[in-house]
């Protein structure tokens, strides 16, 4: 048993480092994109359209991952796209988490009418198809970074609220909550000091998961042409463009897709890894 645990820990550790490594590298690339990108991501050159990656025949030096139909450098666009993706992930993820987790904690711990109101809101929200709702919101708010962030927060707070509510409810039934009452602690104090630390690991997992989801939502909105603007490089926009020329220039789709895939995977694995590592109960 002891042995089994150390094996799990090793695997969890590897997972944590791999995902943190990828996200760290990506963040660095995003920060330095204007300096390290080999080309201008917006520069079009119709004579250099649909160039394959450098290791293939017919490629052009300097265009490492090839070009799209307008002759824009795929690598440079991926690097610049990372700026948008990570910004959305961080800002939207954090705000969604704060709002959703707070509402969930209040509903699950305080119960009563607070829970009634919040639960009913969650029910109504859950009756919306989220993708359609976000597209609708972008149509209302107009395209742009702010709109995307607002749309994600407005739609996804229920993800946190639902799970945190259930968890807080389960924790509320534990005797350590009763013993805090016996000690004379008030309701809000008990919630923050006693219950919150026990719900925190769940919140961390949800938060990193949400960051991954935010990246995807941004990509989906770019895909249906509702994100920032058609020119600015975003991964979703590149995927959308690559989808149409998939038989002629696969690299336009594959490279942003792989980047997006690894990023989303890393976010979710990061959360699981962090939970395993910093949970005193599991440790």
């Amino acid at each position, binding site marked *: *048993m*002891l*042995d*089994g645990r150390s094996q799990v820990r090793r695997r969890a550790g590897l997972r944590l480092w791999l995902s943190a490594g990828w996200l760290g590298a990506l963040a660095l690339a995003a920060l330095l994109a204007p300096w390290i990108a080999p080309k201008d991501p917006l520069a079009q050159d119709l004579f250099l359209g649909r160039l394959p990656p450098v290791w293939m025949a017919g490629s052009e030096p300097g265009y490492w991952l090839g070009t799209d139909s307008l002759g824009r450098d795929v690598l440079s666009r991926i690097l610049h796209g990372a700026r948008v993706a990570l910004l959305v992930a961080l800002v939207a993820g954090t705000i969604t988490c704060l709002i959703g987790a707070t509402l969930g904690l209040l509903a699950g711990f305080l119960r009563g009418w607070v829970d009634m109101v919040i639960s009913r809101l969650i029910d109504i929200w859950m009756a919306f198809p989220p993708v359609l709702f976000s597209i609708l919101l972008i149509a209302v708010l107009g395209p742009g970074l702010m709109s995307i962030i607002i749309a994600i927060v407005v739609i996804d707070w229920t993800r946190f609220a639902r799970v945190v509510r259930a968890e807080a409810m389960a924790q509320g039934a534990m005797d350590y909550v009763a013993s805090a009452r016996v000690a004379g602690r008030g309701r809000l104090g008990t919630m923050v000091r006693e219950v919150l630390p026990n719900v925190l690991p769940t919140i961390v997992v949800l938060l990193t998961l949400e960051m991954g989801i935010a990246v995807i939502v941004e990509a989906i909105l770019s895909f249906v042409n509702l994100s920032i603007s058609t020119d600015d490089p975003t991964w979703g926009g590149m995927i959308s463009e690559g989808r149409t020329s998939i038989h002629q220039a696969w690299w336009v789709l594959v490279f942003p897709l792989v980047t997006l895939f690894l990023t989303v995977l890393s976010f979710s694995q990061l959360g699981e890894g962090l939970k395993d590592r910093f949970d005193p109960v599991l440790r």
Partner: protein
Amino acid sequence: MSALVIRDLSVRLKKGPPLLRRVPLDLAAGEVRGLVGESGAGKSMIGKAVLGILPPSVEITGGEILLEGTDLLRLPPKERRRRIGATCALIPQDPLTALNPSHRIGPQITDRLVDILGWTRPAADARARELLAEVQIADPDRVLRSYPHELSGGMRQRILIASAFAAEPRLIVADEPTTALDVTVQKQILRLIAGMQARHGTAILFVTHDLGVVSKVCQRLSVLYSGMVVEDSTVADFFAAPRHPYSAALLAATPKYTDPAAGLNPVPDAVIDAVRAEVAAFDRGAPHG
């Protein structure tokens, strides 16, 4: 004739510390033997090893389990399972979780008879009715058609006892069968088990932490500490004068309402140290397991 003979049974956590240390045990046909010890002493591990229900994290590293002369550990898994199913039974601890909530009571008593022993369904049903009458359940037909949640805890424990005796086993492992019950219900259930045992002549391995219970239902007992049998006595001898200092201390620690002084004597540190040293010496002498 012995119903069960265990020789040198060693069990350990996979690549971990030993849980049972060369345990010897002899259970005569029709005898009730108590297995006592504190939590972690390995008392229920013995019953699980016999029935082949050790958790997957645990492995048997040596010894023999002779059931009516056949070593269970040498049989191929499938045959071993069938033989255990045909000749042994378990009375589990918690009546509330030991019956499958989505099956009716009837099949839960008769399934072994039909599926493993090849009885016809009418014969098995008749047997089930007979058994329920024996454990003093009125209206057996209704009970057989019920789901577990429709019955009380005491009723469920009676059904589990009936089910254990269904195939006239030679050996029953009773794993803390009354720990979850109120003391008044415990008395009824223990009486019921003792009565059934006497009528059917079944040998029972009775796992419990309660020396009071042992003194009421067992003829012999084994006291375990850290997977080692430190004492093997008849009940009469043990309660008159326990031989091992650890088992003597355990007896002194057991509360007794007739004697307010009993029950507040923790096992002295010196006794714990001595028995630990014994275990350590044993491990040095016996690399086995």
